[in-house]
């Protein structure tokens, strides 16, 4: 076991490799250790607050319960590192390789994870509030190799352009997060809270959004083909120009939602609540609308060709110019 002074002395003398060393509890606050090789070393409970470990090699290192607030780990290699319970508040992990790392319950509040590689990373229960994950890669490689964000907090996180294909985001707190242009194809967002989030142009094809909360969310031009939105709360949501073809919208709450020009062809909207929703110019061809509630909804110029709406509630709905299931145009 070596101590902080010895490590700094040897590093200062040009030594870079400290693989497999026991450095538990070492305090290296603000230390400059750029490019250090600490692969497989034991750094349990060590302190690296505001230290510089840019491009450090930390593969398989044990960083459990470490204090890494404000650390610079840009472009560091943290493949399969153990960062359970680590404090990474305001840390810089830009371009870091965190594949298969364990970040369970880690605190990444306001951390910089721009362009980080987070494939197969375990982030369950982690706090990513305000974190910037722009362009980060959390893509699923195969069913067994996908990022796990179960129970994580991603409130106000910046996930613009991030790749979250197949990621496990079940019950994640994404309130106020920005997921514009992100890819969430086939991602599990069941029960997730996306209140006030921004998902402009986001790809959610085949995503599972069952029971998710999307109140006031901006989903303009989002792609939701074949997505499962069963019982999701989409009150007052903006789905202008969004694609929801073949989506499952059973018992979905879409009161006051803006679905202008949305494409809902063949979607299942049975028992959906569309009270006061705007569906002007929307495409509802072959939709299944059993017991759907369109009270006071605006369906001006909507296309309802071959839609099954025999049991739909259309009290007070505006259908001017709409194409009805039999092809007639409502005067």
């Amino acid at each position, binding site marked *: 076991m070596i101590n902080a002074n010895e490590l700094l002395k040897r590093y200062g003398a040009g030594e870079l490799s400290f693989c497999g060393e026991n450095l538990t509890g070492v305090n290296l*606050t*603000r230390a400059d250790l750029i490019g250090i090789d600490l692969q497989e070393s034991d750094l349990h409970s060590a302190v690296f*607050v*505001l230290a510089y470990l840019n491009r450090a090699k930390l593969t398989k290192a044990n960083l459990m319960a470490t204090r890494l*607030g*404000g650390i*610079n780990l840009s472009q560091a290699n943290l493949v399969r590192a153990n960062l359970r319970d680590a404090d990474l*508040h*305001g*840390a*810089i992990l*830009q371009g870091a390789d965190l594949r298969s790392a364990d970040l369970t319950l880690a*605190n990444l*509040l*306001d*951390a*910089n994870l*721009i362009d980080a590689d987070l494939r197969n990373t375990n982030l369950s229960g982690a706090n990513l*509030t*305000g974190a*910037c994950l*722009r362009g980060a890669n959390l893509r699923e490689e195969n069913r067994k190799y996908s990022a796990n964000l179960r129970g994580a907090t991603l409130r*106000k996180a*910046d996930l*613009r352009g991030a790749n979250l294909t197949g990621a496990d985001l079940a019950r994640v707190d994404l309130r106020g997060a*920005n997921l514009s242009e992100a890819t969430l194809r086939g991602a599990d967002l069941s029960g997730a809270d996306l209140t006030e989030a921004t998902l402009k142009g986001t790809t959610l094809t085949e995503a599972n959004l069952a029971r998710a909360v999307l109140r006031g969310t901006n989903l303009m031009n989002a792609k939701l083909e074949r997505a499962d939105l069963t019982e999701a709360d989409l009150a007052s949501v903006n789905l202008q120009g969004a694609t929801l073809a073949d989506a499952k919208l059973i018992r979905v709450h879409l009161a006051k939602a803006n679905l202008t020009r949305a494409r809902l062809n063949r979607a299942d909207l049975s028992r959906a609540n569309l009270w006061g929703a705007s569906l002007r110019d929307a495409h509802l061809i072959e939709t299944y609308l059993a017991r759907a509630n369109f009270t006071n909804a605006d369906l001006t110029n909507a296309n309802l060709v071959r839609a099954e709406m025999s049991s739909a509630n259309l009290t007070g709905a505006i259908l001017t110019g709409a194409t009805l299931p039999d092809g007639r145009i409502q005067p």
Partner: protein
Amino acid sequence: MVLATSVIPPIAASSLLSEVAKELASDQNALRIKKLMLFACTQKWENDSHRLQEVNLLELVKRLLAIAPTLEQLQSRIHGIANSLNKSAEYTLIANAIINRVSRLYLETCPVGAGAGAKDYEAVAQILACDPDHLRIKKLLILASKNIWETDANRLNSLPFLDLVQEVHDLTPTPESLKAVLDNLAKTLSKKTEYEAIAERVCLIFQSLYFINLSAPALEMLDITLTEGILEASLGASSESLPEPSCEAMAQPQQPYAYIRQQALPDFFDLRVSIMQSANPMRVKILLFTLMHEVFTPGAEHDSLLKNHELDDLLQILLQTHKLLSDLESKLLSAARSLQESDEYAQVAQVLLRSLKPFYTYLPLKAGLPTSADEGATNIVSVEAGLPGTTEPNSQKGDGSPSARPDHTCQVLTFERAIEISELQAGASSHD
């Protein structure tokens, strides 16, 4: 402070005009000069060298004179542009070259630095000469005024501080422009951190040239606080000793400008990314925490407090509570100074200022506002963009008693005055 207010003669002698244009054309940096002048006139950045060559410098000079009827406007406009460019250090020198030459075309009703007399220059030169870093200060001043990096000890010694002080002061009409010039130059040097600290010190010492009515005791106080590093207190105190502006100063047409925050708040996601790309998020938070609450001291208590503050909340509050960029700047730099590793935090402050500057607009002082001598020192007024009914605050001048001022402890003098004006305006419009 009486700012040099120079008025363009109705018809600048055409021979002088073409002479100035010729001088600019023969400058070794003629292309960059053209680029900068073209941008000042057209807001377009031209990179095509053919098109640049076609541009008539004489026409550009004429247009520039039309756009900037006073030398101060020319200076603040050209320095403002140079400061906003990627290569701000290089363009600061270009800006100086332009101002040096074009300034001849302004009929000086009151020469630059007229307020500052020989005595003021001597006092400043003396303080600088006694500074332990006087050689580095000299190097920086020579670089600013002559664009030469002088390292020869003999030549350095042979150049008197007095001339350098005067030259640099002539080039920079406001403390802001002085700061911009020196900071930009410091950034290009290998010992950047040291020179940034020196630049800051020089700015502080030069303050007396901009606040020319500062009494001798006040100057002494400034000197004392320099060693103690408490700038704000001294400036705040000295504001009491500033006399009312002279009639002469009032009569001169001035168009002070200030960077005033826009009404619309920015996209905080974009802002956060731009800050995170160039600064450590933790340090940003520590700096903002220090600015808003108390000096951050590492330890469990402040660590957990910091975790209760999210970066974008801090940024939002920062923007909401700072209507003037100059105020934001002084607060950030002061917070940086109060922290350990102040150099690191000064860099963070610069990143924040760069990222937040686009949300401030350079606006002219609306007509009718008091152009008092002291506020002219930094060309700052506190007029919230779109403030309804800019009434005649002249009629209420003098109403802003010191006790009515908000209780800010780290204010620069000019901001205090600006607050007063802003309050007067708010008061005036609410009575309407």
